[in-house]
Each structure stands twice: as structure tokens, then as C-alpha cells.
């Protein structure tokens, strides 16, 4: 997730995808956890390059949500 925090844009894309799912999505780093559907939260959390982030989804479509977000991070942010 090396550049999620660099720009509002990648964070915005993350939140857009996350918001398509019903599952609750949480993104965590160290001791901080934010709502994956909150662009302000995601930007705050993912501000540093190379930070290790943990993604958690809970709900009916949790698996699909994780898949989609993983694919996004891999394709969009690891070019």
C-alpha cells in the first residue's frame, strides 16, 4: 500500500470501491483503526509510504470486498 496516502486520489478510489460493499471495512495500522469507507480516515491512516496496513471486512459480502480492495491496491498502487 505504498502510495495510498500520497494523494487524495488513491484514498478516494479505495473508499469508492469499499463503499460498494455492505460489509463493514476496517483499515488498521499500529494501534489505529479507521473506517475503510471514510476518505478522511483512510487518508489519515495511510499517509506514510511503505506503512504496513491491515485490512478487515465483516459482513455478508466481506470476502468479495477484500478481494476487490486487494486487487485495487495491487493494480493501482503497485505499478
Amino acid at each position, binding site marked *: 500500500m505504498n502510495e495510498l496516502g500520497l494523494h487524495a486520489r488513491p484514498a478516494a478510489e479505495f473508499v469508492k470501491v469499499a463503499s460498494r460493499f455492505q460489509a463493514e471495512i476496517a483499515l488498521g495500522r499500529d494501534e489505529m483503526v479507521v473506517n475503510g469507507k471514510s476518505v478522511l*480516515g483512510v487518508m*489519515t491512516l495511510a499517509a506514510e509510504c511503505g506503512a504496513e496496513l491491515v485490512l478487515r471486512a465483516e459482513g455478508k459480502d466481506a470476502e468479495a470486498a477484500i478481494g476487490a480492495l486487494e486487487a485495487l491496491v495491487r493494480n493501482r498502487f503497485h505499478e
Partner: protein
Amino acid sequence: MSASGRILTGIGVSPGVVIGPALVLEWNIPDVPNRVVARDQVEGEVARLHAAVAEVRGHLDGLRHRAERRIGAEEAKIFDAQILMLEDQEFLAGVIRLIRDNQLSAERAFEFKALEMRALWARSTSVRLRERVVDLTAVQLRVLNYLLGKPMALDVAREGPDPVVVFMRELTPGLTVQFDRDTIAGFVSEEGTRTSHAAILAHSLGIPCVMGLVGALPRVRSGTRVILDGSTGRVILDPRPEEISGTQAGERRRQAFEHEIERGIAQPAVTRDGVRVELLGNVDLPEELEAAAIHGAEGVGLLRTEFLVLGRSEMPSEDEQAAYFTRVGARFPGRPVMIRSYDLGGDKFPGPLRPPPEANPFLGWRALRVCLDRPDIFRGQIRAILRARATADVRLLLPLVTQLEEVRQTKELVAEALADLIREGRPAARELPLGVMIETPAAVVLVDALAAECDFLSVGSNDLTQYTLVVDRGNARLASRFNAIHPAVVRMLQTIAEAGRRAGKPTSVCGEMASDPLAAFLLLGLGYRVLSASPTSLPLMRWLIRRLDATGAAAAAAAAVQGTTERAVREALEQGIATYVDLRSLEGERLPPGLRETSFTA
């Protein structure tokens, strides 16, 4: 800035004189009164909050749409981020909690929550996150202003019948997209220089602009009449009647001259003795395409591609580039468009790819060197050009060439890309004309060999002057030493023109030099028949060329080349041109600032 009461002086970045009412746009977050509401009004405050969000949303949608139409889909994404911030459910839930739990007014609760967010971001070790505070501020301002019943102060609302002179601390994306000649007569900012994005945009749109007017905002109130002179950088507040009439008379003269120039747009640039000169436009931003077409550009002599990268977190995709190149080509059907490969380097990189700072960026890892060291980046650009060439006459132009090998390596990459595209069965051209920019002393010395290896030559006069004279053109202290009519540069220009002729390769000049009347006269005399300059310079150049005589220019150029001092060169040219035009009559006309190329090499 020097200030003597009513008269302020900053940096003139876009020429033209206007008189109009000032409109001061402040970015100060409004004072929010500490208001507590009655228990039974709490839900009413929640409803007000929702109404404010909906209103601002509509507003941002409008700006987004406008940005997309006027500048491009990429720039419009700035507003996507703001819309997401505005509608952040987590954030709004927090605001609503504050309203319900503490009986705060909607604006008080919103401000409280925003302060919390700003404090969190301000403490962040990430510079980039701290930079995004500007988006948060934009959203916060709009919501608070709405809730407080104030106008959304970030926007240009014309109050009277006259277009306004906008005063701002700094230009913002939200304002950039509203640049519109019907609403804005001129623009003044406390920050910024000739090289800022906004200055370039103002210049290309023909909106007079003064920047670097530090401390101007507290001195001017909205509605105050001002005279703005974008050439001299002078701003007069509350002008006296004689200042207004003097300005108006000067403006009438200027307009009459401009009309004379504009009338010539449809006519070809042909000298009195029948020599045809092709006039092309230099284009930095998509927004300038229209300006180039309107001012009679017969194609694009220099299409810069750095804007595709600036402010991005990743390189633009091949498809995005191909779409842009196709669009540019379609605007000039049947006419050439020279696409300069990425002039990346220094801070002109998407954040994550940015190399460590260099001691001498002008002598550093930039331009073609970056492209050849990073074929993954270069390949996408070459493929995009080949694809666009299926429908338009786009060509590839290589900047900062110092070695013959660089041209050969590029040709190999082009051949590979071509083979790949054919294998993939994608529509693409089967060949690509390749041009070499002659803008280093090394390239001048090797010009015969380079000419043999490529299809056309293009003199980058700004860099050639800078590298030959060892003068940084961005350095204000050296400004008088940066002169393309230096005897060394003049002789190089002659060498290049002759090499082009010998090899039978078209040779053009694409620096701002071509827009200086005396230099244009020299270039004509040296045999250059293709000149490319910023779009707004083209009408004056056409007007000039139609008054000149190529034989007379050749004689003057021959004398100028003999000169060993700048003064001797200048005198030879001035003497020669005096037969055709009175240079003094052009003083203070729409001559461009002449420093535009620094926009991307700061």
C-alpha cells in the same frame, strides 16, 4: 513588492492593461459564533447540516463538470476528492453526534470536527497529507459559509456589469477552472511567479495578470476600482481621473494595433518578397489548444507532455496519452504536431518515482536521459504517439540530445514498439518521423551527424542560450545576461540552419526567441522557415513577417553573424529591420514575458 500608497508593483506575468472593480477572495475560515441551540431545535440543526452538504455537493459537481470541460478529466479529479471528503459518513456522523449530545449549532459542530481533523493532519509526519489540508479547507469553507448564510467566498461572482480584477493570496484549482474572460478582467495574487501554473494559464488565455504582490490583500477592498498592467506588474488602487484617461487612451492605441494584427490572422505569413514562413504554436496545457487555433497556429511545433505527470501519484497510462495526442491532432487536421518526449527531472516526477534532489538539476538526470534509462516509461509514450499517428500527423521530438547514441537508442525503441503494436493488431502508424532538438552546445557541434540520423531538427533556443552562455534563465540577477542575440548563439543558429539545409532536413525554432521581433528578423535572415512560439505571440509574428523582406533579412543576418559583441549584433539587426518596421512602435505591445519555458524547469 514596492509600495507607495496607491501604487503597488509586483511581477507582470501576463500582459495587457485593464480597469475594473476589485474582487477580493479570502481564504480565511469564517468566525463561527459559539451558539448552543434549544433541545427541540437539535433535529433542525441536523437537517441544516444535511442541506448544507447537499448544497455544497451540487456546487462541487458544477465545478467538477466545468473543470472536466475546460481543463481535463485528470484536473477534475481534485473535486472528486473534495466531494468524498464532504460526504464522509464517518465525519458527518461525528458532527451529528456533537449536535445531538451537546446541542451545538450545525456550524459550530462542523467546525469543531473539522478542527479535530486538521489538527490530526497538521501533526502528521507526512508532508503530503499536510498538503491535502488545502482540500479539507476548501470543503470546510464552503460548508461553513453556507451555514452562516455567507456567499461561497471562493467563487467569482460578478456583482456589477464589469468584469472584475480578482485579488487572491494564491490561486486554487477551484478558481483556475473559473478563468473566464467574461467574468475576470485581470488577476492579482500575493504569491506565485512567472513560472507558476496559474501564470502560464493566464498568459495563454490572454488574461492580464500580476503576481508576487505581497501584502496587497489588506490594502484593497472588493469594489475598489483598480488599474492593472500585466506587462509592467503595476497595480493602481483608486486611480485618479487622469490616470484612468491616460490608461484608456493607451489601451485604445493598443487595441487598435491589436485589431490590425488580428485582422491578419487568416492571411498566410508571407514576406513582401514572397517567402512563406510556417507559424506553429507551443502548447503546454490542453487549455492552450484553443488559443493556438484561434491565433492562427498552423500546427503545434512543441507539444509539452509534462502536465500529464505533474501533481500525479503515478505515470499516466498509454491510453490516456494516446487519447490526448489524438485530440491534439484532431484539432489541427492535416497539420504537424511535434510531441516532445517527457522532460522529466527534479521535481517533475510523480511523487513515488521522484529521484533524490540533485545539486545541479539542469546538468542532471532529466529529459531524454530519464526516458532512455526508464524504457518502461518511454515505451508507453512512444506507443501512444504511434497509435495517435494512425489518425493524425503527430511526430516525436527528442529534447536535450547530447549524443548520437541517444537518437539511435530511441529509434530502436520505436521499432520495437511498432513491431509490438502490429503483433497486437492495434491501429497504429507504420512509421514515425523523429526530430532532434538542438539545444545543447554538444548537439550544435554534432549537428551534421544528428541531422543525418533524424527526420527534422528543432532549435530549443531557450535551453541553447542557457547552456551556451552558462546563464540560468530563472535567475533574476542574471536576467540581463540571458540574451539569445549573443554572438555565440547567433553563430550557432547559423551553423544549425546550414546543417539542416545541407542534409535536406526541415529545421525550425521553437523557443520564445522567435516571438521577439528582432530575433524573428534574424531567424528569417538565417533561413529558418518554421517558427513556433506561444500561441498569443503568433498574431504579432505574422504581422511582422508580412512586413519584412527575406532578402533584406538575409543581408542583415549576414552582417549580424560577423558581429563579435552583443551590441554589434543588435545594431546590425536594428539597422536592417528599420527599413520595414519601427520597433519603437511595438514597445509594450503584447510581447510575451519571454521566460515561459522555465515553467517546467524550475
